[in-house]
């Protein structure tokens, strides 16, 4: 029975739905865990520094494929440790610029994956947020400093802010305490709203972030549905479960003998806009009709 390694920068606790989606993907190409495939899980619990060690563990187990999920950090750690073991990654940002693959069409090496359109959407998120908070002038942005995309994210947002006539307050955070500190800064600077940039770390800390936003009555837009589900005002981005499902499919196809170098890096283009009306009501916001019309899901 082949063994697959799942290397995640997240924690197992907040990944149940994602792991289920991954298993669905494997099952779609004929592998079911425990019967025709075994899965070795390695969780970094948001501590990116542990990833290289975990990746090395999987490499030592000589797993057939490593699914490196939870951002490019995970993928890069896996690539360093894996040698010739094929890798399927989920990475925000540009995998070519990160050196993961030679091209999106034909990755060429032992690495392929899925790159959700998240970074490109930062500007769109700012625009959507402004629809909800039309009077805002200063808007905060939470980025993960150690994320290789954070600078590009900030740059895109700055450009969009200029178009919209907004000012941005970009705050970096690499730890739980950083997040707390960032919120304190936002309150002090009287930011009217918050864009939480795409990063798996924030994804794994969604409850903390949503709770802080609620406590400080700060309207915020997030990347993935689970933020809105946890009480976040609005989320706009790729369906992350769909992405994990695709990771499972690719992993299974590689198990079946396909070369990762021939599997193009996928870029999902279906986005979901989820609005939490309860939160909007609590914040005293009126959701404009066009926005409601565009929403894929409205939580009441």
């Amino acid at each position, binding site marked *: 029975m082949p063994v697959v390694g799942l290397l995640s920068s997240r924690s197992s606790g907040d990944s149940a739905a994602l792991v289920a989606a991954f298993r669905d993907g494997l099952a779609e190409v004929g592998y079911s865990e425990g019967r025709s495939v075994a899965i070795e899980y390695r969780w970094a619990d948001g501590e990116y520094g542990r990833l290289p060690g975990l990746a090395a563990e999987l490499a030592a187990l000589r797993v057939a494929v490593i699914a490196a999920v939870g951002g490019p950090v995970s993928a890069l750690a896996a690539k360093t440790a894996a040698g010739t073991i094929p890798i399927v990654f989920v990475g925000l940002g540009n995998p070519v610029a990160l050196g993961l693959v030679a091209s*999106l*069409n034909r990755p060429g090496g032992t690495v392929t994956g899925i790159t959700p359109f998240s970074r490109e959407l930062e500007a*769109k998120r700012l625009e959507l947020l402004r629809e909800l908070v039309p009077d805002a002038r200063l808007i905060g942005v939470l980025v993960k400093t150690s994320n290789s995309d954070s600078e590009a994210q900030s740059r895109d947002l700055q450009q969009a802010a200029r178009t*919209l006539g907004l000012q941005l307050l970009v705050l970096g955070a690499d730890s739980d305490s950083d997040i707390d500190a960032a919120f304190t800064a936002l309150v002090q600077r009287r930011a009217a709203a918050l864009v939480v940039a795409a990063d798996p770390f924030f994804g794994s800390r969604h409850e903390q972030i949503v709770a802080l936003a609620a406590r400080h009555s700060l309207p915020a837009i997030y990347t993935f549905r689970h933020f809105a589900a946890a009480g976040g005002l609005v989320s706009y981005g790729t369906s992350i479960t769909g992405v994990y499902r695709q990771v499972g499919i690719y992993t299974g196809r590689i198990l079946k003998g396909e070369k990762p170098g021939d599997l*193009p890096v996928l870029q999902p*283009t*279906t*986005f979901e806009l989820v609005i939490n009306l309860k939160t909007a009501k609590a914040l005293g916001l009126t959701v404009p009709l066009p926005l409601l*019309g*565009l929403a894929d899901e409205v939580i009441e």
Partner: protein
Amino acid sequence: MSDAAPAATAPPPPSSPPKTRGSLFRKYVLLFSSIVGAALLANGAVEVWFLYRDHTELLLRVQREQAEAAATKIGQFVKEIEGQLGWTTQLPWSAGALDQRRFDALRLLRQVPAVTELTQIDAAGKERLKVSRLAMDVINSQNDLSQEPRFTQAVARRTFHGPVYFRRESEPYMTLAVAGTRRDAGVSAAEVNLKFIWDVVSQIKVGNGGRAYVVDAQGRLIAHPDISLVLRNTDFASLAQVQAARAGGQSPERALSTEDFQGHKVLAAYAPIAPLGWWVFAELPLDEAYAPLIDSIKRTGLVLLLGIVGAILAALFLARRMVVPIRALQAGAARIGAGELGARVEVKTGDELEALADQFNTMSTELRDSREREERVGRLRRFLSPQLAEVIESTGADTMLESHRREVSVVFCDMRGFTAFAESAEPEQVMAVLHEYHAALGELIHKFEGTLERFVGDGVLILFNDPIPCPNPSERAVRMAVEMQVAIAFLAAKWRALGYELGFGIGITHGYATMGRIGFEGRFDYSAIGSVVNLAARLCGEAQDGQILIDNAVHAAVAPLVECDEPSDITLKGIRRPVRAFNVRHLKALAAE
């Protein structure tokens, strides 16, 4: 066994049939089994051909229907987007606020997930509104798009289908533009994500190993279950099925057997996507398509094999029925050839062969009888003239040679002076004289149908009326004797010229004698015993050269026919009373005739 059998092998026993090139048995078996085999083969081939045709037609129809269903879906997908775009071009630009238009555009994005970006262009070709899922919306930028194909072509033809392109290298997109019916309504252009088409195509199940895919009007691959092929911008224009679609597009079959892009043999069917000029292809690997057919061919082959085996067995049986009696006849003929006459052949087939065997047996029996008759005639020939022997043989009277007593005429003749001649002459001369002498006598014996009883040197004993009875035996004897005297006189003149003094005398008697076989197994003679025989020899001994002495009994029988000298009573050695003898001078010519 080959013909080149080692020389050391023993020659076949004479009873075995001689080896011939290609036995009847083999010919029958070959002919029969090849006729039956050919019939079965032809039947199987016809069956398989029809099966193949029906099966292929059915498969292609199913595939064509699948391709058509997919083409319909994709066509509807495009038509629906065109319809939605049409709604956004209802109003002239002079009327209605941009906000309302933006609301409509966002609603369109909501309703049509495939549209990623929607641009509205006014009648002058200026961009008035752009809403996007990916980027920020742009309102009233007034960018000049009047020269772009999506504007010019849409205005000219109401709808515009742009070429397929890939965003960020991997996402398939197409620009779809629709112009409003009013002149001042402008154009709505949507960037349509074609992943939907990929989904449609990848959901089509063509058998187990088959696939469906879509190519555009130029033959470029647009959708394929293996997305990487599409992303690599694969050109399928060189495939036979794509060429067929692009060339003769609307032909009713829309299906063919060909090769896919990897060179695997496939059954391909296709259908056009009407609004786009694209094509949907459904391909099924030939291996899979014909698997049931191949099973069926295997079954047919098995039946065929069984049939041929059956035919061979039947042929063996029939040929055996035919050949065994023929071999028996052959063996029978060989036995006859080897001398075993009367050999019988047992054939109980109840047909012409049995009739032939019966005839053979009849022939064999007749051969044996004939041979036995031949042997009998051979035995008789020693004693009788050939014609007489035949007569005896034909009457089957072997018993004639048994001991019996009969009244016979006995002629005894020998040469005068032979003993002296034999003593003085060379043996070769003696043999030459004897040869001429016997030849002359033998001819006459045959002529008068006498029975040559024996030669004793120059002495010859001849019987009449035995073993075959004849009328007037004494007359025959006398007539023969007269001719003998003439013949020998002629010879004697010749011999005299050679210096041999030889004469010839004859004695003839008539009376009862005992006749029969004497001797032992392997050397039997037919012999006459009795005083009449001795008397003939004595009379001969008394006869001078040229004389024919006959006794009373003979004289009594022939007196009217012959002129005789006065009888004289002769005292003979071993006979007590003198015997009256007549010398025959000559036959009474006219009276005798």
